[in-house]
């Protein structure tokens, strides 16, 4: 799940910031994790930018198979009775 990966990236980023701010790493290692940190933050921002906002609805077709389709304003207007099995 993308959410888990994103969360891991954020956690790693936080660790990197902590390490860098402590400042007791050798310079070459600092530079290495600095690059990693910048890369992570850019990737995370990119992921956020590219994520598309959508609302879907889980429906069952005639064969009983479940499908996702876009959730439209029409769905709001349906009557409760239409959901009866």
């Amino acid at each position, binding site marked *: 799940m993308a959410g888990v990966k994103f969360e891991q990236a954020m956690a790693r980023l936080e660790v990197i910031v902590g390490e860098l701010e402590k400042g007791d790493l050798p310079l070459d290692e600092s530079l290495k994790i600095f690059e990693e940190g910048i890369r992570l933050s850019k990737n995370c921002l990119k992921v956020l930018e590219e*994520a598309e906002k959508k609302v879907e*609805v889980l429906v069952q077709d005639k064969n009983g198979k479940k499908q996702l389709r876009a959730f439209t304003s029409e769905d709001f207007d349906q009557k409760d009775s239409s959901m009866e099995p």
Partner: protein
Amino acid sequence: MIRASLEADFPETWLEGEISNLRAPGSGHLYCTLKDGSSQIRAVIFRSAAMRLRFGLEDGLQVVVHGRLSVYEPRGEYQLVLDHLEPKGQGALQLAFEQLKRRLEAEGLFNVQRKRPLPAFPWTVGIVTSPTGAAVRDLITVLHRRCPILRIIVAPVQVQGAGAGEQIAAAIHALNTLGCIDVMIVGRGGGSMEDLWSFNEEVVVRAITGSRIPVVSAVGHETDVTLADFAADVRAPTPSAAGEMVAPVLAEIVERLEMFAARCRQATMSQCLDHQQRLDLLVAHLATIRLRILREAQRVDGTLVSMREAIRDTLKQMTARMQGWRQALEAASPEVRVRHGMALVPQLRLRLTGTMAHDLKRYEERIHAYLGRLHGLSPLAILARGYGMLETMPDQTIVRRVAQVSIGDTIRARLVDGELRCTVEDVLPDSSV
């Protein structure tokens, strides 16, 4: 006949009492005794009526019942056939709620240890609710206001009425099988206790506790509490509140990311600056060291020069002294002395021979003088004057006394010009001597 008359005389009855001696055989009919302080009566609840009961019957329960009087003919006992029961003092729903809650609680389904944390960054949120109510609209609005990039999947269900519980449970299962959902919200807007009842159903509670995805319950208003709330990982007081709990604020995440990046840059920059400063210090230090080395090298050069000079001087002195020694040595050479001595030899020889000749002459003269004087003293000279000398034979002892010889001895008489061998004829000592 009795039954017909009883059923005719007491068609409908309301009674109040305590349930005791409750039995539930496999048939689905329930049997019990209703009693109060002074009396008791047998009662039966046939299966069709038992299935309509919202709550469970148990011994000691105070109930208000409705039924008709009848006779159980095989035993000739009269009994009440109940078609409606209600707990006394509280609603049937309330009692049913308490009973189910106690049972599921005992099973451990509401344990705090079962609760899972909600994901910090959900990507996809599932919603199990009615698609038509205000609740779903509010929820979507809140979720997207906070996090515009959130993907929302609505599993539409009927949230009240017959079969609603099963629908809700099935939707929770369906969202679990999708595999892309990070967290789900199960709920509906406000309503009466009857309206919310589906969320107290066991099938819903079990679906929630069996969900692999964390569940937030959001049923009715703040004051409404359902068993779904106890089962969920987090209880939200309302659907909108659930939206607030589930969705992070995107702007805050972006801000946090940017801050992280800024702090990375800041920290690395300051470390670099720090290193540069240290490097500068080291370079400065190196320069002073280099200067010191140059000075030392100069001193070494100077020392080398003076050492070379000193060696050259010493060498010169030594050479000079050696020259002197050689001259002295040459001067003292034995060859010179030998040559010198050789020159002296003839001279000395001359002097030696001169002296010798002179001395020899003198000795000759002295020897001649001695010889002359010796000659005068020699017995031979005495012999020349007519004396003779006798000697015994063969030991040549000079005969001075007559006693030295006997008659017949041979003696020798030495004369000046020779000797004589004489035999003694007679020895005549001189008596006067």
